[in-house]
């Protein structure tokens, strides 16, 4: 087994609150993000040197201002599973990132906060520690800022910082654990995001067949997978975007993913779709006419970024179906067929922004055997399933005794 992590017993709690919708300067689920500057850089390097080769995954980067510690990691784990870090105490991180659903959610659109549905597919937490750009459109820059955004988003955690912080403070075990991990008298919600980020940095998988192969174990991939690797790096052209140790150039491309039909068929999904246009800062005109996810455009506001998404990492895919930002494909076979057709689904549908479609995406002319080999190779990027039991949640308890309250009353 690779990374089955044992869970000690702990109790936990957390919180959330609502978004102040009327105010200016709304928090959207995007917090910070890297501008488009490096976009062309990746392309330039590639032209000169060719794409970075596939490589074994190293240790995840640890930010100097949030070093790992056992106390922090353990705390982060409990918090990750605690639904009290959400508006109505029902929806925490693990609610949409279920360990036994690939640390994601096995539907096209993620489940949402109660009363809502999300509009994008839930991404796996596994290996997210490596990504300098988080979310499908790369809008968060670290696990820390990502967690904050996730807990607050109206269709995600819908939790406001102050109520979440207050909840943590009436859970004595958390008070103690935050003190141990961060040295504060009372839990501070920002430290909750830091602890969760530390926990996420332990959710990495570095012993897949591909890693073993790249580290010198030539028997780690079978003949079919080796053939698939060749296609991936050659005829299939996948390596042009899915490269390096994290199998992603962390750049943004429009590969032709068609809009999810559910927006035409599901009232709840239509509500979220329109809300997201506002939440992501669309203009009034854009709000009126948008009929698909404009992806990286929401951040860059450049017309040529419409329909572009971050190159999705390909590790741990075996457990994270469905695929793509809107979950339109349920199997890796469908994905490969999509690429083979040059970025069209089986009904010939493609992105609404054809003008932005990457020139790297074109019909591949793969045979059935070649397609099978490519799928087999994609699967070699996943190791064992990483499962984890939900830790016990610490309980609320009063901070004051009745005697203390009576004394305060007497002293009035």
């Amino acid at each position: 087994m690779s990374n089955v992590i044992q869970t000690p017993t702990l109790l936990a709690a957390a919180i959330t609150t609502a978004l102040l919708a009327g105010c200016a300067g709304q928090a959207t689920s995007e917090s910070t993000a890297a501008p488009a500057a490096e976009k062309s850089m990746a392309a330039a390097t590639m032209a000169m040197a060719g794409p970075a080769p596939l490589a074994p995954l190293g240790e995840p980067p640890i930010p100097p201002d949030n070093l790992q510690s056992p106390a922090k990691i353990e705390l982060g784990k409990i918090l990750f599973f605690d639904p009290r870090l959400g508006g109505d105490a029902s929806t925490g991180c693990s609610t949409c990132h279920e360990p036994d659903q690939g640390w994601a959610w096995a539907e096209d659109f993620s489940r949402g906060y109660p009363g809502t549905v999300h509009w994008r597919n839930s991404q796996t937490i596994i290996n997210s520690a490596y990504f300098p750009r988080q979310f499908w459109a790369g809008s968060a820059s670290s696990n820390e800022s990502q967690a904050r955004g996730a807990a607050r988003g109206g269709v995600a955690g819908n939790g406001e910082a102050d109520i979440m912080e207050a909840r943590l403070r009436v859970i004595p075990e958390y008070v103690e654990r935050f003190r141990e991990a961060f040295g504060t008298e009372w839990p501070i919600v920002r430290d909750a995001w830091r602890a969760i980020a530390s926990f996420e940095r332990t959710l990495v998988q570095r012993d897949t067949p591909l890693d073993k192969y790249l580290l010198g174990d030539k028997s780690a991939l079978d003949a079919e997978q080796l053939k698939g690797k060749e296609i991936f790096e050659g005829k299939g052209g996948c390596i042009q975007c899915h490269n390096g140790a994290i199998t992603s150039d962390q750049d943004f491309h429009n590969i032709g993913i068609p809009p999810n039909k559910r927006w035409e068929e599901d009232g709840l999904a239509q509500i979220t779709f329109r809300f997201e246009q506002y939440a992501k800062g669309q203009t009034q005109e854009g709000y009126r006419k948008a009929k698909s996810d404009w992806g990286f455009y929401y951040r860059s506001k450049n017309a040529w970024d419409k329909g572009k998404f971050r190159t999705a990492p390909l590790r741990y895919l075996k457990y994270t179906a469905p695929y793509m930002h809107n979950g339109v494909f349920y199997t890796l076979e469908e994905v490969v067929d999509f690429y083979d057709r040059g970025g069209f689904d089986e009904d010939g549908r493609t992105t609404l922004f054809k003008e932005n479609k990457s020139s790297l995406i074109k019909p591949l002319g793969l045979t059935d055997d070649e397609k099978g080999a490519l799928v087999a190779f994609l699967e070699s990027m996943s190791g064992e399933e990483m499962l984890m039991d939900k830790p016990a949640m610490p309980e609320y308890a009063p901070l004051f005794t009745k005697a203390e309250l009576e004394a305060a009353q007497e002293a009035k």
Partner: protein
Amino acid sequence: MGVRVKTGHTLLAATLGLGMAFGAQAGKYPDITSLPDLKINAAKAELGKRLFFDRRISGDAGIACSDCHKPENAYAHPDALSPGYPGNGHFRNSPSVINAAHKKVWMHDGRLGTNLNDVTREMLTEDYIMNMDMRIMQERAKQDPKYVQMFKDAGYGEPSNGSIRKAIPEYLKTLTSVNAPIDTGKMSASAKRGQKLFKGKAGCIQCHNGPLATDGKAYNTGVPENFDIFLDPMNHHAFIAFAMFQGIEDYMNLKRDPGYYNITMDAADTGKFVTPSLRELKYSAPYMHNGMVKSLYDVVAFYNRGGGKDSRKDSRLKPLKLGKQDIKDLVAFLESMSGDPLTSGQHVWKDPYPAEYPVIENWTQVKN
């Protein structure tokens, strides 16, 4: 979270002494007369009514205005401490919203002093009240054909969060006292005796005056703390979030509701609450900002003892030495300020809400 509004009330000068002859005093205070009529736009109010009873205007679609402001309880809540948004408690009693449209200052501590649009916004967005991202609220309304029609009929055009916050206050205007004996003049002999006491010996009129029986100012009457705020962590965390947001120092160690102090940050205002209206009390028990007094009889007994215990208690409150009959009469007078319950279809939205949002047909072709 709500906007903190400085209400800047000048409190009654302390010289209004109890030593004065009450008879002479009574004339100084505006009588409890009938409330003026309000101009109401029927279509807007009807829309506001549907919204007031609709749980879908809360974050998780789990709680409506009417779940805390219940028609059968004079649009207040029968628990001492209000329920909270799911996953939260609360730390104050949910007040009646009947006649709220006639007020100039809202909330027990008087922190809102602008208009009902702002009060509605606070209710909708506050974490532990309805936790609603108003952009989602707007899109939900746009997905409900009945709302689309009603907004149009009300002259608002398409549903928007701004017009939701206008329609609800329009509905609140329809919630006013109807047929209260004090307005119709059909008061019992006991109530009439009570009224005399109210204006005279009992001194209630000093603070409870004018059409709403409130001067809109804040006083410390020494109501005991409700320990359940602190003994129930769900209530306590809502209280902590509130105190934190209001900028009250040392909020983790607070063991009392600071009340009006919240607005002035002057220690002398600790434990003051805004004089509530005395209309529609018959159905709105329990009483006081924290529901600590169970019945009107207990309220009068409380004043008869000279109020509660607090070093900053208002000097107007002194033991009243009322007899048994006086107490009964005062209670009868208080009850005479309650009218007919507003529980019929005229005030209550009784049609069911759709279980699901219908899909907008031909979605790719129509404008959002």
